[in-house]
């Protein structure tokens, strides 16, 4: 009897020891950190090396010669595609087979001059496209050649590959950074299995000891009684578990409650599959071309369909969805692309609003964009990389205030701030960071009225 107790006691003490040992380890963070760091160094090393090598590989050609693809996307895509369909200008598939490189060089450099020189092919194309002149491009010869080279390679690939399909790799890379819940589950199963095995081993050993000492088998309790006994014997464990559970629950609950009304990451499907990646990223259209209110007013505004038509009167087919999405604009503004005429049956496009600031908060775009010279991306994230726009920032008051605490006011060159600037530098010292909060940017009535 005594040994059973002692063994149990020993086991328990072991466990306690184990716990205390663990806590000791935790109590000495420096060593553990060091060891951790040391462990990571080789991994980092390899990673950095890898990155460096990759960089060298990818960058080296661009140093040597111009990137035809990039140049094409920058300069040509608003009017041409490497395909058969006409956009504003002709489709450029196999254009190198139709004309000599020399001809193309002259045309691209200054098509108007070329037409005036009386080249019959040039005049023919000009006539064919309703005398819409192609602007002259100040590109170097090798740059134009690289574009032609790009057209050559693209022409050989058929059909045109949609740009969206090229990002398959990035998604996986992002995922691998985080440990998936499956791993945690696996570890949990292992621990439980181990516990079960050890438990059996211990029970087996106890039985062996009893048999050796000639003791009687203990009464095995069953059902509720057994649970009750177990509970009685494990009061502390239960208490700890309860406390841990409550703390965990409270933290999670609090987080969940604090998250109500925050729609960071909100990415609804829009009525038109408009790609900011294509427009702002690839084509590098300035944000303020469409969102013209950003510099003038409280609202940055979603452009009205007539703004779309500035380009899409000519650009009638997109690289990914062809005419499907662009035709939705035509439907809204009642435009007949075949005849190029507008009708009267106009219906506004019902976009889904992504950024929904509550009514109680007043936000003014022009204050931030024009006066504060804040980049659009600071709050809206890398929109130029978003195929489908999502809410990048939490848009909470804490988020606003953090930024107001950290952002310096752009006072130089603005007559409004001249006197205030000198006064504040006197007050806070010449090296002071004059952040928005220092000029009252945290006061309630700046945003709430």
């Amino acid at each position: 009897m005594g040994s059973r107790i002692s063994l149990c006691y020993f086991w328990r003490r072991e466990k306690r020891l184990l716990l205390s040992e663990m806590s000791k380890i935790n109590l000495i963070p420096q060593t553990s950190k060091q060891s951790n760091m040391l462990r990571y160094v080789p991994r980092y090393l390899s990673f950095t090396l890898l990155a460096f090598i990759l960089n060298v590989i990818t960058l080296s050609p661009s140093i040597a010669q111009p990137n035809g693809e990039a140049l094409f996307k920058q300069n040509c895509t608003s009017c041409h595609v490497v395909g058969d369909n006409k956009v504003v200008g002709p489709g450029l598939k196999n254009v190198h087979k139709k004309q000599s490189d020399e001809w193309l060089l002259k045309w691209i450099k200054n098509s108007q001059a070329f037409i005036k020189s009386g080249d019959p092919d040039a005049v023919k194309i000009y006539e064919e496209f309703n005398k819409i002149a192609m602007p002259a491009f100040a590109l170097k010869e090798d740059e134009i050649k690289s574009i032609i080279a790009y057209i050559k390679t693209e022409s050989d690939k058929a059909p045109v590959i949609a740009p969206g399909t090229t990002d398959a790799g990035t998604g996986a890379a992002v995922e691998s950074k985080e440990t998936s819940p499956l791993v945690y589950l696996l570890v949990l199963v292992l621990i439980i299995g181990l516990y079960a095995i050890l438990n059996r081993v211990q029970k087996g050993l106890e039985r062996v000891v009893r048999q050796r000492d000639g003791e009687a088998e203990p009464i095995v309790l069953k059902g509720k009684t057994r649970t009750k006994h177990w509970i009685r014997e494990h009061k502390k464990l239960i208490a700890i578990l309860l406390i841990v559970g409550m703390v965990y629950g409270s933290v999670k609950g609090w987080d969940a409650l604090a998250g109500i009304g925050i729609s960071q990451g909100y990415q609804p499907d829009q009525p038109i599959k408009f790609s900011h990646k294509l427009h702002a990223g690839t084509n590098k259209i300035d944000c303020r071309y469409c969102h013209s209110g950003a510099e003038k007013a409280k609202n940055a505004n979603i452009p009205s369909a007539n703004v779309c038509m500035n380009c899409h009167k000519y650009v009638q087919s997109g690289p990914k969805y062809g005419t499907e999405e662009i035709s939705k604009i035509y439907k809204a503004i009642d435009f007949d692309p075949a005849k190029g005429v507008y009708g009267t049956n106009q219906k506004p496009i019902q976009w889904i609003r992504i950024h929904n600031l509550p009514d109680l908060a007043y936000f003014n775009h022009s204050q931030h964009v024009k006066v504060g010279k804040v980049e659009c991306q600071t709050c809206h994230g890398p929109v130029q990389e978003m195929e489908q726009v999502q809410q990048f920032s939490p848009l909470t008051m804490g988020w606003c205030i953090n930024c107001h605490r950290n952002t310096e006011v752009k006072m130089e060159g603005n007559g409004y701030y001249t006197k205030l600037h000198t006064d504040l530098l006197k007050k806070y010292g010449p090296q002071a960071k004059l952040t928005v909060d220092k000029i009252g940017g945290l006061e309630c009535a700046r945003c709430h009225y």
Partner: protein
Amino acid sequence: MEKKYWKGVEELNNSPEFTRLRDNEFFENLPIDEVLQNKASSTSSTSRRDFLKFLGFGVAAASLAACEAPVKKAIPYVVKPEEITYGVPDYYASAFFDGNDYCSVLVKTREGRPIKIEGNELSSVTKGGTNARVQASVLSLYDSARLTTPLSSKKKATWSEVDAAITSKLAQSAASGKKIVILSSTLPSPTTKKIITEFSSKYPTTEHIVYDAVSYYGLLKGNELSFGKSMIPSYRFDNAEVIVSFAADYLATWLSPIEFARQYAITRKLRDGKKNMSRHIQFESTLSLTGSNADNRYKLKPSQLSSAVANLYNKIAAVTGGASVSSSATPQDKAIEKVAQELLNAKGKSLVVSGSNDPNEQVLVNAINHLLGNYNTTINLNQECNLRASNDAAVIELMSKMNAGEVGTIIFWNTNPIYSLPNSKDFQSALAKVGTKVSFSDREDETAQYCDYVAPEHHYLESWNDLEPYKGYYNLVQPTIRPLFNTRQPQESLMKWAAMPQADYYAYLEENWKSNVYALQTGITSGHAFWTQSLRNGVFEVAVTAPSAPAFTGNVQDAASKITKPGTGVELVAYEKTGIANGAHANNPWLQEFPDPISKVCWDNYFAILPSYAAKMGYKQGNVIEVKVGNTSVKGPVLLQPAMADETIAIAVGYGRTKVGKAGNNVGVNAYPLVTIANAAMKYYSAATVSKTIEDDYPLAATQTHHTMMGREIVKETTLSAWLKDAKAGNPEEMIETPYGKKKVEDVDLWASQKNPGFDRPNHSWGLGIDLNACIGCGACVVACNAENNVAVVGKDEVMRSREMHWIRIDRYYSSDVTKENASEKGLGKLDMYGEMEKPAAENPDVVFQPVMCQHCNSAPCETVCPVVATTHSSEGLNMMAYNRCVGTRYCANNCPYKVRRFNWFEYTNNDKFPYTMTDNLGKMVLNPDVVVRSRGVMEKCSMCVQRIQYGKLEAKKAGRRPLDGEINTACAQSCPTNALVFGDYNDPQSEVNKLAVDGRSYHLLAEIKVKPGVFYQTKVRNKEEGKEA
């Protein structure tokens, strides 16, 4: 022996049944056992556990559903108009004229909907001023009582149906030689008049009769008798050094109050080194807004006023050599003698006006002005005023023609005679004899309900028009929103019915301007350029025609013999209130809730009676009395109104409408039936008999129920002579008792010390200065604030509980006979003294007005008591209120010394209990999108129009400069017709507000409590005669 009262016969008899019932509170047994024994309920499948499960599930489901944000849509224009930038207001110049007030305005629109009216500073008539009615007019656009389609026999119809029917009826009338009568209000529009002329040439039997609800026939006719032409001259109060008014309420309702208020204020302000003021003397029976601003005010019964004019004439004629007339004595003859002397001293620089509708009295007034040589300076006969053209005689004649069956078709245009005619019952029976009745009314009003066709007109903000308020002053009216409903301009309707070739009124108007008005100027060389510039500016003005002394051809003897002789006994006088005026806008909740500047009562009219006279007659406030004039009697509540004339009862017209809409129906009583017709003119006073009814007392909702300042210097006052001697007269330094003796207020501070000098204002320091000398108490600011800040309308019931939401109020105080100084002379103890001080002076109290809004205290008592820091102070001197932080403890309101905080006792939006502006979708369109609509349970107050400050600052920042003084303005200051309120930055050394702040007249309200307000006031200076203290 102790008296015993029985509850009833049962107790007296003390029956066993009674005892049993008495001892049981619940005399019927509660069916507890039956419920518990009910088999059905115990075997019901829903157990307690199930119930809890359902409950839990319900709560969880509800909260889950609440978590998911609803999908909001953003719908841009398909083709955005170039001038619209989302979030940036556009302003359009236009003009307001409703048959009563004229005002040149700028309409602020946001995303294509008008939300606010502001004054147009380019107009040399109104000069950027507005009044309460003009400010409120934008809300009338979004009135759900407006007709949405034309009506034919009270049924909805299409325009083509109505047009076809009316055209054939008109042709019938013309063919049968019967009259086609257009009964309209004054229409001072040259192009409209042209259309009526063209209509008349198509239908030669057409007769255009002008009928205004409140008539100026006497003024027109009086001028005809005096100078041979029925017209109204233009008045220049700013040129007058002595102004004498006989019951003309020219600051609130008479003729062109916005224009006159601005002119008047110029003579009253003591700014920029100006050290003289006009003298303003008022003779009147009621206490009008104008009278309350007078330096000297004399009370006369309505019937005595004409004789007072005659007596004044005699005094002046005696000196200037005019013929004397016979006249009766009045109680104020002594004063008249003095006034005559003052007028004579200011010969050529004085002005006498009368509000009477009696042509003969107006002849005498003209004679006085003529003798004083005022027709060269303060009155210009060459600059005709087109704002009133009503012809009472023609209206009375019309009724006999209608009765005789001579009228084939009658068209009502901005008139509502069934409501506003004194003999409307006769008119109604005469109307039945008219073949076809057509109304242009925008709603099915009292008259339109008897019409065969209603061709509803646009609101003025949807219309094209032009106005010529004075000869040579033109103002274009342009639409600022597409018509909300299927309505049409009356001009266009007339054009359709007369089959005129032009497509619409707009084309006609433009054509007329490009050809006719364009020819009046030489500067611009193309008609199109002239048209676009006129549209942009709103106004086009031809050089002013200089006044010239006319030949006076009036017969004063004859006039004097025909004027009313002083009567005996009770007299009733009908007047217009500053808010509702003639009642055309009775369905405007802003105007209904706008407290009358004098009585502070809203949502009602009442019989105003002098307290001492009421006491004599045994009437108390709220008693319902019946006033009988001739055969008509009207019942209404009594209001004790100090400063009324003795034996006079006054009631406002414009109330008691029955077919105007939800907000205005059956508010107050209709007083038009008490108007009488004498010598073919409306007469607004008559002898009356009064009797008390047995009806229950009728409660009146007043926003201010105390009448005096109780000896405190809330409004500081002085006289001009005292002020000339001492710039700080009436405004001595406030001293505070401290342990170290008396100290100046600024030397004592709980918080600040040498080390801690308080808060600095590095950038701006906003402040508001209010010149009590210029404030006339008209209340334009109150309604402007309503519009700008989405202030809720709460209704009469809530106002009676002092729960009105106005962010700015105008306090009105009467002087008291008892002061702390003279109390002991009068033998009053301390308690009696305070009791007596509460009573306004019995005879003729002085009246002061004081606009009070949040004073934006720099040591604000409200801020320190808020448990959730919802109200805090900004580094620009504003007392800020974050509604979403507020939990509604109301500690701040308790701690506010000025009582300017307002609590949202209810949700005023989407609440059927408050069917005013914010409950229907239409009414919500007037809301200012830059200001939050407050919800139930939060405190709100004046923010000093922080949205305007922020907007102005941002505009300056974008332009890279400092804001200009005057560029940022609060809604109250902007709307003020007298520029009494000046808003600006104390940190800008050049600002107007800074200059005023250092003036000797400037003081802080309750300076002794040292809350350091950002708002300051300036002492009121009265131009009293020498020796008489203010």
